[in-house]
């Protein structure tokens, strides 16, 4: 195969593959920066995927579908927020149970739609002008979905907001030391709720991308661990939105490269690669972290209780 074509195809596929990871991981970064860990991403993506598909199928409009996907993620995460923030229960178990519930519910609800292709899927776009560029054009600007570019924009906006605005400073501070934020007179719970809800919204959109754009259909194993990989991605990027983009693209590239090796290795072993790679990425992060003394937000996973209440 022509090397040029190989590289182009790999990068293009990597971008597409990375898109749901980017959406979900960005959402998780925002949630975890506020100190609330959300292990329900996998389930929320599944709910988003099935809801998006069902709505798009019945209304014939993918954008309503996408909106519904986001709403489904939002609704599920509001449950998690309530349990973890207001009730101050164990956020890890709450998230995990939502994944189980989300996967089961989505499979249940999605039975009617299994195997039926979406008549009006999201169409890939070519970016005007930029897609004409030699080599770079077909690599990055042809045949991708709007959601892919939207993810990059959201990442950039998230970075600017997190590091250059007061709101972002407050978010980061809540995740590090909620008592300090409380003593400064700011609403810790409200910030956490907002962060978790945004996380759910983005996870829902990630699922919607899968069922509306990436492979426009619904199947029970659709999410297939991508939510968990997105969680790993959030850690690997050290909770920084820009790094999420780079890490996500890196993951995507590695997976697609691995698929190229299908002629050499048995397919089952290749499908294993994303998960192996995730473990390696986490090991690498932990190893580097020891040297840089940078870690998770201090208050991650701990409910906040002001002295009296």
């Amino acid at each position: 195969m022509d090397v040029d074509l190989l590289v182009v195809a790999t990068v293009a596929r990597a971008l597409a593959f990375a898109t749901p990871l980017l959406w979900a991981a960005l959402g998780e970064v925002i949630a975890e920066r506020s100190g609330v860990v959300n292990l329900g991403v996998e389930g929320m993506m599944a709910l988003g995927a099935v809801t998006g598909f069902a709505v798009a199928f019945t209304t014939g409009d993918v954008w309503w579908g996408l909106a519904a996907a986001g709403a489904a993620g939002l609704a599920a995460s509001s449950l998690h927020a309530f349990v973890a923030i207001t009730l101050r229960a164990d956020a890890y178990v709450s998230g995990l149970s939502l994944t189980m519930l989300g996967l089961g519910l989505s499979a249940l609800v999605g039975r009617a739609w299994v195997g039926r292709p979406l008549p009006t899927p999201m169409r890939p776009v070519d970016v005007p002008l930029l897609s004409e560029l030699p080599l770079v054009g077909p690599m990055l600007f042809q045949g991708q979905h709007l959601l892919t570019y939207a993810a990059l924009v959201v990442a950039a906006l998230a970075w600017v907001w997190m590091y250059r605005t007061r709101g972002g400073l407050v978010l980061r501070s809540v995740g590090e030391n909620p008592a300090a934020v409380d003593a400064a007179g700011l609403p810790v719970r409200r910030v956490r709720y907002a962060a978790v809800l945004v996380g759910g919204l983005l996870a829902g959109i990630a699922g919607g991308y899968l069922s509306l754009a990436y492979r426009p259909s619904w199947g029970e194993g659709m999410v297939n661990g991508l939510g968990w990989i997105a969680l790993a991605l959030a850690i690997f990027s050290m909770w920084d939105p820009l790094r999420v983009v780079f890490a996500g693209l890196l993951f995507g590239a590695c997976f697609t490269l691995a698929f190229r090796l299908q002629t050499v290795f048995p397919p089952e072993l290749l499908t294993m690669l994303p998960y192996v790679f995730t473990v390696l990425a986490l090991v690498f992060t932990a190893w580097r972290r020891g040297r840089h003394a940078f870690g998770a937000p201090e208050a991650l996973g701990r409910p906040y209780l002001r002295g009296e209440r």
Partner: protein
Amino acid sequence: MSADPSRPPRLSLRGIEKRYPGVRALGGVDLDVGAGSVHAVLGENGAGKSTLMHVVYGLVTPDAGEMAWEGRPVRLRSPREAIALGIGLVAQHFHLVERHSVVENLALGFPGVRAWRPTRALIPQLRAAADRYGLSLDPHAIVRDLSPGERQRVEIVKALLQGARLLVLDEPTSVLTPAEVDALFSVLRRFVAEGSSVVFVSHKLAEVEALADVVTVLRRGEVVGRRTAADGLDRRDLARLMVGRDLAPPVRARDRAASSPATAGPVRLRLHQVRVDATARGRPPVLAVDELMVRGGEIVGVAGVAGNGQSELVEVVAGLRPASAGSVEIDGRQLGNGRGARGRIDAGVALVPEDRTKVGVVGDLAVDRNLALRHAHRRPFARGVWIDWRAVRRVSEAAVADFAIATPSTRTPARMLSGGNVQKVILARELARDPGVVVAVHPTYGLDVAATAQTHERLLAAAARGAAVLLVSEDLDELLALADRIAVVAGGRLVATMAAADADPEALGLAMAGVAA
């Protein structure tokens, strides 16, 4: 400096009450703070001072009582409302985000700061406040790297930038060197000279004497006396009010003649060329002790401001942290890093840790289990792989009686005990087996007078039985009363060692601050 009698006081409290389950923290407290005045709230630990400050700052709602600001009644439901009024709190435990810079922390607490790049906007204001009051701070320094004194400065600037007209300081000098205390007082005096007010909580008589215009004395949540500087503040009078009786005679000072080097026992603890490297590359070691020896029967005090290597020193001696270099000898035998804490425990090293409730005991476990905590692998508690719970109960009942531990039963979870009793549990456990080396870290912090005296007695008794005692404390009075020799740590090194008889607070304070920036 004194309040103008015709204007209403800046802050006025009447009949403030607050109860917690089983305890009345505050009962009917009245307080007036005038403009341009420094009002000290004096009392022992547990007298309710912190609770009162939390009420003033809106962190805690009182069960009864009224508050008035400049004559107008107010009810504070949150710190935000307190800040809006002009009340600023410099708490004992700083509310700072360690990972962020100084100016980022300031931006957090600043109500009116702009949304875009808030830190940029604050830097000029920070510089202005710093110049006005004489506080120097690097805006971009990361809080984690700052000393406690510098962190306190950040808290103060935070309050000032928020427009505080009344500054509340809760035990501000507990983490400062004597020089830093002077610096703080001059800042406060400048603040007050402008007409603002200061409420300052303390249990240290000398400081209250030096700074306050009015003193309110709290005991068990009630106001038991009020004095003004104008009428003259007498230390003994204040002490009597604080404690409720004439101060017990000071802890029996050691009979120094009896423990001169000639009569002291063999060297039981020796650190030689011990180094603990810093985790970040390229920084100097956090602990570098060339030589430290403690003999049986001797009490060596370690003085120094927190964060100068004391915890590392303690952890190396107790085996909780491996030394990067050098040797630790217990009773002449060099103990490597390999066996960790258990090796030290078996060698007879006892540790009374700094954090009583989280490290010294397991709160959810019963008192009897806590008494078996560090020695569960040895007789009489262990029989092969099994635990002899009857032996555990037996030993714990004896310990409770011997140490007069106030607990409903030996099955009560340790978290239900008061601080003093928790310390008794720890002492009972650690001192029970005649340890050869006893390391005690801030053993009387937060304890009332009676518990402090008992703790001191137990430590002295251990020394009298031949143990080598290493006492790490920030309370210079405690060190001077108990220790034979006092070593000062600063920047991870032992910068001075002196016989207690020759030591005085000034010399110690200078040594403590000597190497600090």
